[in-house]
């Protein structure tokens, strides 16, 4: 896949790139060609190898095999970031500016002219001229931390261009922007393209790919799948290229499919509402959302983190405080933004990242499975015997593979670690279980067990909410709400096709026509 045109005319040309991390192959002989002035989209689901390619294309990471040329010339040696910056730069999702310094200084970070003392007025004038040249309306004397995300991105783009880069990689640039910001960003990018700047645009939102880009490249499972002009490519085909293998017969697929069949075979749950959210909104994260989870039901909330789905899960758990709306459990209102009250009300929570929020790795299975906030003995005493006994019960019922309650959690496999987190969420016998990406980074069999546990919780007459963008997680659900840019874009029962749901998560829905972005952010 050396690309149709000779490498000489390409702004960036990569071919045969292989990158391995231990046993994992992150990139398997992939290629990419970006022409000058082109807007090229790179799409693919999580783990497709997009971010590894970015690190290779910016000279941060040396590939195990393959070749990169920039404007027809061999790329500078890997690790010489300064030389790479003159050709290609990346605006990351995380901020790469120094927040305490002014905009002017960030623009010229470590590029102050000469070795003489810095002349601040001159530097600010140059910064002002530079920003005006690219039409960025930001005062160069402002501190960067006071800028909005949008302004910060413009400053980073201006900095990249002023280093001489004619190709800019944008890694999920719209993830933190509202609709107006996205529109302004796109206008700016089109202007810059007219000046001959090429963009490599990485996004989870296919709608944006169609709006902005000429060419799209799809990666799947570390491999190159297709490169085609956007105009001639139907959306369904694009989604199919991203997901094709996920409908195949992997063990997880079959197991979860069986789960779905079970869910489909059952009569619709008839229980009363357990968890209810009305007009729930968090400014900057998601718009007003209504949702109800009934007893005996597993509700799926489908959407990438950027869609606000994780934020909704965290709001329900009391980790975030909503700016509007109420949450009730069995008719009782839960105090906003308070984890103890959420627990008290009967909301069990499985956090999205077990390493970050879920576990204390050096401590034992027993300790991790027992909520610290919970008083196991009288007067708040934590009785080791009770802790162990509780843990033993959980190890049995959740089938946690461990040498015993005393084993440190760090010694367990990912799937079993996750079961410990679930055990703690279930420790207080919650009325509703909220699980955010419960199967992230676990093996296939544990995946089935974990989803089975969630299913079982609902079958016992309680309620469960799964927040995830993994299709396998969503197969066990009785109902799935697809979230896009903080709003519910579509609702499905048990009958949905992979492509349908992925399209809804990417902001392309048949039933809503052309949803694009929410008209305004939350009040």
């Amino acid at each position, binding site marked *: 896949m050396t690309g149709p045109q000779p490498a000489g005319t390409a702004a960036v040309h990569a071919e045969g790139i292989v990158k391995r991390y231990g046993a994992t192959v992150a990139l398997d002989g992939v290629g990419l060609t970006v022409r000058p002035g082109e807007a090229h989209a790179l799409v693919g689901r999580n783990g497709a190898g997009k971010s590894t390619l970015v690190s290779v294309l910016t000279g941060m990471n040396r590939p195990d095999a393959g070749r990169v040329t920039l404007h027809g010339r061999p790329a500078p040696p890997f690790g010489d970031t300064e030389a790479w910056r003159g050709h290609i730069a990346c605006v990351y999702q995380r901020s790469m500016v120094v927040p305490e310094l*002014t905009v002017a200084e960030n623009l010229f970070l470590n*590029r102050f002219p000469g070795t003489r003392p810095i002349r*601040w007025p001159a530097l600010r004038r140059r910064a002002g001229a530079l920003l005006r040249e690219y039409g960025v309306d930001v005062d160069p004397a402002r*501190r960067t931390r006071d800028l909005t995300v949008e302004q910060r991105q413009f400053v980073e783009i201006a900095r990249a261009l002023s280093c001489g880069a004619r190709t800019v990689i944008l890694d999920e640039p719209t993830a933190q922007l509202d609709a107006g910001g996205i529109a302004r960003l796109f206008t700016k990018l089109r202007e810059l393209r007219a000046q001959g700047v090429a963009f490599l645009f990485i996004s989870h939102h296919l709608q944006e790919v169609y709006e902005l880009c000429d060419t799209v490249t799809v990666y799947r499972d570390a491999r190159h799948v297709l490169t085609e002009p956007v105009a001639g490519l139907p959306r369904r085909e694009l989604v199919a290229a991203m997901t094709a293998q996920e409908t195949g017969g992997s063990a997880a697929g079959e197991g979860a499919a069986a789960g779905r069949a079970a869910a489909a075979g059952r009569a619709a749950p008839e229980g009363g509402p357990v968890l209810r959210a009305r007009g729930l909104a968090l400014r900057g994260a998601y718009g007003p959302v209504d949702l109800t989870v009934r007893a005996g039901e597993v509700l799926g909330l489908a959407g990438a983190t950027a869609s606000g789905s994780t934020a909704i899960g965290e709001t329900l758990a009391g980790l975030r405080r909503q700016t509007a709306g109420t949450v009730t459990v069995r008719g009782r209102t839960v105090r906003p933004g308070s984890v103890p009250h959420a627990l008290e009300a009967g909301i069990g929570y499985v956090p999205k990242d077990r390493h970050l929020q879920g576990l204390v790795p050096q401590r034992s299975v027993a300790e991790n499975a027992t909520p610290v906030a919970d008083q196991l003995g009288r007067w708040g005493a934590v009785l080791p015997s009770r802790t162990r006994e509780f843990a033993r019960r959980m190890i049995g019922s959740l089938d946690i593979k461990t040498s015993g309650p005393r084993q440190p959690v760090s010694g367990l496999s990912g799937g079993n670690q996750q079961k410990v987190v679930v055990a703690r969420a279930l420790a207080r016998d919650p009325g509703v279980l909220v699980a955010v990406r419960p199967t992230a980074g676990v093996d296939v069999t544990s995946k089935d067990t974990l989803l089975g546990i969630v299913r079982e919780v609902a079958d016992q007459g309680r309620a469960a909410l799964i927040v995830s963008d993994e299709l396998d997680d969503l197969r066990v659900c009785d109902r799935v709400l697809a979230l896009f840019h903080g709003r519910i874009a579509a609702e499905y029962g048990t009958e949905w096709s992979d492509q349908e749901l992925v399209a809804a998560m990417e902001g392309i829905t048949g039933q809503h026509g052309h949803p694009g972005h929410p008209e305004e952010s939350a009040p």
Partner: protein
Amino acid sequence: MTDTAQPPARELTDGREPEHRESARARIDFARWRDLSLVPVILVLGLIGFIVSPAFLTTDNLLGVVQQSTELGLLVLGLALVLICGRMDLSLESTLGVAPVVAMWLVLPSDGSRFHGLGLLPTWLAIPLCLAVGALIGATNGFLMLKLRVNGFIATLGMLTMLRGLHVGLSEGQSIVNVPDSFRYLGRADWLGVPAAVWLCLLLYAAAGLFLAYMRHGRALYAIGGNPEAARAAGIRTDRLTWAVLALAGTLAAFAGILYTGHYGSVSAGQGDGWIFQVFAAAVIGGIGLRGGRGTVFGALTGVLTLQLVVNVMTLGGVPPLWNQFLNGAIIIVALVISRFAGGERQE
């Protein structure tokens, strides 16, 4: 000294709506004055001193205050640079004591007085040796933090204790009184009616302030402390610079040791003991962020002066010395709260 690192705000003439510009300007001014937040505190302390005692506003008293500020001030200067890089160095306080001791041990004769040196090197080398010892200590801290990647707080805590032990061991737990003349000169000389130590300290502060505000490497320290990843991506050699700063901080602490030893004409076994708390307090109330990337040396200097003025005013006001420690702690907390609200930002 007007070397604040925040460049002065400037009016822009790019037709934006006035309201927007108004708010942007207000914010800049706020950030700019942040480093001066202790100046009113110093003025109030001066007023209290004036009311409390007629002896306060005399040349002798005020010179005494600044003279006593020099040693603490140099340690704070070193720590401020290290903190701006986002690092920490607790061992500065024992460097203050051990660097002069090692230097004297190497140059003083092996007989003739109570303290037996090695007499290996000529006496005129005392000052260069002392500074070199300080730099070596800083460089060792840098090796631990940057090469071995151990926790800087604990590594320098270990260094603090170890160097204190070296000091006590070499001096056999006793004061050393036969101080080299060069030390004595720097600690006691007056230039133009003002102690030489004060001139030197001001000079170093001015140099550091200008370096941080106007030199490429000085600005790089803020980038390293503020966002190390961005600094590295911008081509700044973060480790090398941090290492240099740690060595410089050690050198400054050793220089403070020379001035202190010269001023009092002896090195006691406990020289510098417990200073590090004052040093941290002065730096933080002076607006240096503990997480790096924030603050100016001018702010740090106001922090030092505030702490020293409080002690002076209390002494003149007849506060029993037994209560000094209590009030010292209380004033640190009060000054911290004042600077937090004057700065308008959380100190995390």
